[in-house]
């Protein structure tokens, strides 16, 4: 995956390039808004990571210009401005996700990967399957190895989001944002408890676990067979 990081702080940019490379991706760096816009237009990237406050041209304007030109490359905004209305501004300008500084690298990676995946067409999917776990988005039916699993509505949405991002790390914040639509960090481990309840339903009576905890990052649904 090719990622363009538009970030004016050189150390942060280097850290992201190095980390993304270690995670198996290719990262290009632009130090200001104009350079970022040029690179984004003339090169092909899977995801753009754009700081909101940049020299030459700010991040909002960069993304707006890009979108006006018909470019649909997914954009993750990075910003020190973390209030809800800043987030709304960012998303309205054409951003696909918004991450408030300071952030954990694992959070950024998870979001970048989720964005890259979202860009590939999979809209029509009405069924998700991971190993022997199946989820029908229309009938809200969940089975594992043919056995019916009864889930609460919220548990269903939790599983649905995890399965949509199967094979990728999903952070607690991402879950809170997408399943509960809350954009703040709780002090307590609320998400963990919900996950453990879900795990009790889909993993407990089966040999291979399918819902994994990724230490220091979040959770991942993955077929245990490989």
């Amino acid at each position, binding site marked *: 995956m090719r990622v363009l990081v538009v970030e004016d702080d050189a150390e942060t940019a280097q850290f992201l390039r190095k980390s993304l490379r270690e995670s198996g991706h290719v990262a290009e760096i632009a130090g200001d808004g104009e350079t970022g816009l040029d690179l984004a237009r003339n090169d092909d990237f899977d995801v753009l990571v754009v700081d909101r406050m940049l020299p030459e041209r700010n991040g909002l304007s960069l993304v707006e210009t890009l979108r006006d030109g018909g470019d649909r490359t997914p954009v993750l905004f990075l910003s020190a401005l973390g*209030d809800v209305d800043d987030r709304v501004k960012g998303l309205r300008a054409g951003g696909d996700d918004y991450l408030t500084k300071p952030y954990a690298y694992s959070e950024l990676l998870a979001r970048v990967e989720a964005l890259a995946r979202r860009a590939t067409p999979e809209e029509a999917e009405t069924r998700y399957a991971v190993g022997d776990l199946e989820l029908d988005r229309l009938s809200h039916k969940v089975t594992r190895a043919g056995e019916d699993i009864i889930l609460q509505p919220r548990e269903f949405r939790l599983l649905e989001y995890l399965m949509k991002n199967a094979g990728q790390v999903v952070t607690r914040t991402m879950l809170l944002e997408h399943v*509960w639509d*809350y954009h703040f960090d709780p002090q307590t481990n*609320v998400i963990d408890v919900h996950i453990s309840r879900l795990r009790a339903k889909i993993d407990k009576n089966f040999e291979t676990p399918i819902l994994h905890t990724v230490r220091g990052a979040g959770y991942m649904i993955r077929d245990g067979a490989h």
Partner: protein
Amino acid sequence: MTALTNLFRSWTFRWAILYLLISVTASGAVVSYLFWQTNDLLAVQLLQTLSSEEKGLREQYALGGIGLLRETVRERARAPGAGIYLLTDANGRKIAGNLNRVPPELLENRGGLFTFDRQGLDGAKVERLAVGRIIRVRRGALLVVARDIQEQRDFALTSQRILLWGVAVVALIGLGGGVLVSRYIFRRIDAVTETSRRIVDGNLSERIPVNGSGDEIDRLSTNLNDMLARIEDLMTGMREVSDNIAHDLKTPLNRLRNRVEGALRADGDKQSYRATLEATIDEADALIRTFNALLSVARLEAGARSVSSETLSIATVVDEVAELYAPVFEEAGRELRVRNHLVMPAMIDGDRQLIGQALTNLVENALKYGHSVHAPAVRGAGGGESEKFETELIEVGTLSPARAAIHDVTIELGESATCDGVTVVVGDRGPGVPPDERERVKKRFVRLEESRSRPGSGLGLSVVAAVMRLHGGELVLSDNRPGLRATMRFPRASEGADAVLDRSP
């Protein structure tokens, strides 16, 4: 001198002068008009008298010739308070009358004003003014008929003088009044100017004097004072934030630094480095959370953040948060319950994220501190503080041991009794907050002694209070007998009352 210059520069004084000029001119015009009209009337009457006299004398002459005329003139001239008469022959010699010679002024124009000398009471000669006509009788004989108008003229002159003096006095009084009024207003506005000057110079606690009269300047001053109070609040908030950053963020940063430094010095193995680094990341995360909370409180309090307002059902938000937290409570062997006392769905105007966060903070507080004082297993060793509190409650009789054993947390939805609003009450069974601490704990970084040992930034309630203020509501802490009762009081949605009715089953 500057006081005088200032006086002339002040608009109140200028207006006073202008007003004075207009009123003096107007009253002067009215009085002058009356005066001239009266004078005119007198003159017309005089002329009529003269012409009727002339007519009468002509008749006498026609009846009895010059002889009868002479007799008549003599008679009339002798009468007390008589007019002025003179009959002369062709040579200008006096035949009869009380005037000694024909006034030369009259000879030229047959009639008009003339002066003549008369013996005053003291014997001196006095020049007097008269108006009269000359009638040519026959063969050069002349008859002068006139009236003394000296008194009338004196009266007119006196009136004029009085008028002028009057105008002068009125002008003087008006000027004095203008000076007084403008100095009064000047002083009061000057007080405002002075105060604002001092505020510009940095003394934000200055207030404009208000005299309690409730007049325009008072109202202006009151409003300015309110504005100043608000600004001062904001400035104080800013200062507090920077103090907070200095104190409550520097300390953990320093701790973090010390830990890393200690690890470097210790020359440990890979394992211990790793442990230190992980602890460092945890500490950094906690710092970041504190920092974010602090920033958001500051921004909420400054009102910098516009509430992205939507009309939402408060019950829905409560249910969502309860659903999010119920499992955590169950894991801890406790319970989170929602009791909805609303007769029909209540809508409020607000930001779902902020209200959700505020409610979350209260629920997390209840989770952290709100376990029953009778559940020693959860509380651990327990502080002397809470034991004392508990004993007191039992003594007062509000707490039966059976009731105290309930250690659940409730979120109650209800109508506000005091205002037309909705309340969301998070009640716990913990040690509560002593009455004299209830306002203080809403401030930034204020934590009760017994919560110090637990993780937390001391910003949770500040966030809730700020969110409530931003929504036009308030956060009230009270006694839950036992425990803490945190009440969020929201005003109802301004519109959408119909929608509520439509949606209610």
